[in-house]
């Protein structure tokens, strides 16, 4: 893994509660770091606090207790506007985050907000659209785009601002499996190319399994962290991704499968060895 020791995001004892009259925290004392260039998956069931965590990281909510440091700077009410250049967020619903009336207008929205001059803006919009392969749709209006295309535009809008971190808040949940796979592939390439850090909040275990590291949230607390291999073998309650499921079934039937967690690729190459 191309991890540098310097964390790009540090979360310290973060707590949050929507209803201050109640005693139940939606997040309680969450502490973790995200390193530059890694793909971190945060998984958890509905109500585990993962979307709240995303909102706290983007400065959309103010923490009850605890601190968030982004690139060494503490996120506060005062500097959240500066920090938003460093962290871009893609939300769940493709329609509700499409602000422009055409694709290029939408990508430009973030740049307009940061008062980027027209010529630079034009170039950045074009580059960003090229990165997600949507350049030929630049004059199209959102009503004529599919959900996957709209999410691509949302990602382009984030990329145009040139952030350090991209936060995906269940960004692929409304997409069909094919476009979900395509999106993941595109993001993987972009991440390698531009040394982006990606935090993906999800309950799709296949998506989580392809990450570098994962964090499991349960009722507002971190219950496990580690590589997908470690986490899936530690936590029997967590629904494993397909390859691991297949391995466990075969293992229970007494077949000679590897003992440890395997990825889809490993499963395929193992299956191929059976043939030869």
């Amino acid at each position, binding site marked *: 893994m191309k991890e540098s020791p310097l964390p790009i995001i540090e979360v310290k004892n973060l707590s949050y509660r929507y209803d201050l009259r109640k005693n139940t925290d939606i997040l309680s004392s969450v502490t973790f770091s995200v390193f530059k260039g890694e793909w971190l998956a945060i998984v958890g069931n509905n109500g585990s606090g993962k979307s709240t965590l995303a*909102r706290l990281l*983007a400065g*959309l909510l103010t923490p009850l207790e605890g601190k968030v440091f982004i690139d060494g700077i503490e996120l506060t009410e005062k500097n959240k*506007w500066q920090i*938003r*250049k460093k962290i*871009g*967020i893609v*939300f769940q*619903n493709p*329609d*509700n*985050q*499409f*602000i*422009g*009336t*055409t694709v*290029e*207008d939408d990508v*430009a*929205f*973030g*740049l*307009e*907000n*940061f*008062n*980027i*001059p*027209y010529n630079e*803006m*034009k170039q950045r*919009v074009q580059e960003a659209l090229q990165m997600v392969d949507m350049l030929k749709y630049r004059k199209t209006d*959102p*009503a004529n785009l599919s959900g996957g295309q709209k999410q691509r535009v949302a990602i382009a*809008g*984030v990329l145009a*601002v040139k952030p350090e971190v991209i936060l995906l808040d269940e960004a692929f949940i409304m997409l069909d499996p094919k476009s979900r796979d395509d999106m993941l592939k595109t993001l993987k390439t972009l991440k390698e190319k531009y040394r982006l850090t990606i935090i993906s909040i999800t309950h799709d275990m296949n998506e989580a399994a392809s990450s570098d590291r994962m964090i499991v949230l349960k009722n507002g607390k971190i219950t496990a962290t580690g590589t997908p291999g470690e986490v899936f073998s530690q936590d029997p309650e967590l629904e494993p991704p397909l390859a691991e499921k297949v391995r466990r079934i075969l293992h229970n039937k007494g077949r000679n499968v590897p003992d440890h967690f395997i990825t889809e690729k490993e499963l395929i190459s193992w299956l191929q060895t059976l043939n030869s």
Partner: protein
Amino acid sequence: MNKLLLGRYIPGDSVVHRLDSRTKLISAVCFIVIIFLANHWQSFLLLWTFTFLTLYLTGIPLNIYIRGVKPFIWLILFAVLMQILFTGGGEIFFQWGPVTISELGMINGLNAFFRFTLIIFISTVVTLTTKPVELTDAIYFLVKPLKVFRLPVEEISIMLTIALRFIPNLFEETRKIIDAQKARGTEFGKGSVFQQMKTLVPVFLPLFVNSLNRAEDLANAMEARGFRPDMKRSSFRQFHWKWQDSFTIGILVLLTASIILIGLYE
């Protein structure tokens, strides 16, 4: 929704389409003003020639424009009738109590008819050939000086743009809700007016709730992407003033001058 032509945009690449939206807006306003200055057949001849030339240049079939006039036909006929029946002057053809059909009344009626149709034609040209966003941009540009009076011009312009952006989504959602209610056995368009209104409540309620949720999502997305009200923003959509724009404005100046001259000397 297809019946109402007002506010619809028909994509195209005609000279009129390519004009700057500010030119179109200013010209339309100017044209409507001079329509009211015109009161001679020569003036109307000029205005009609100009209008038909513009209609021709848009490349949009004439029957679409005529369809635009149709919803207003009763209003126009009413205005014309009022003029004909209640204006006296010139040679009187028929009189019965307050009802007078006179030469002047006939002329005024015809003028009223011309004015209405010309206004509708020209405003339809603007809306059919200009994207709603471009129109908002033009409005924004023209009301920008009002910032001196602390009018939040930028915010209003953003609000307008977003409202326009979500109109198709709202239509789509309304259609879905209506389908869902139909599937549950609601019959639309039946019974008395009161009953019909009642069946619409379960359509509008979810629509409002969804819109509020959508607004919250949108506000979050806007904030996360760095939108701050009352901060200076740059603009991605730029105006491009071309010689055609200057030409159009020039023609309008000439037209206004001729209408005024005809009024003075005839």
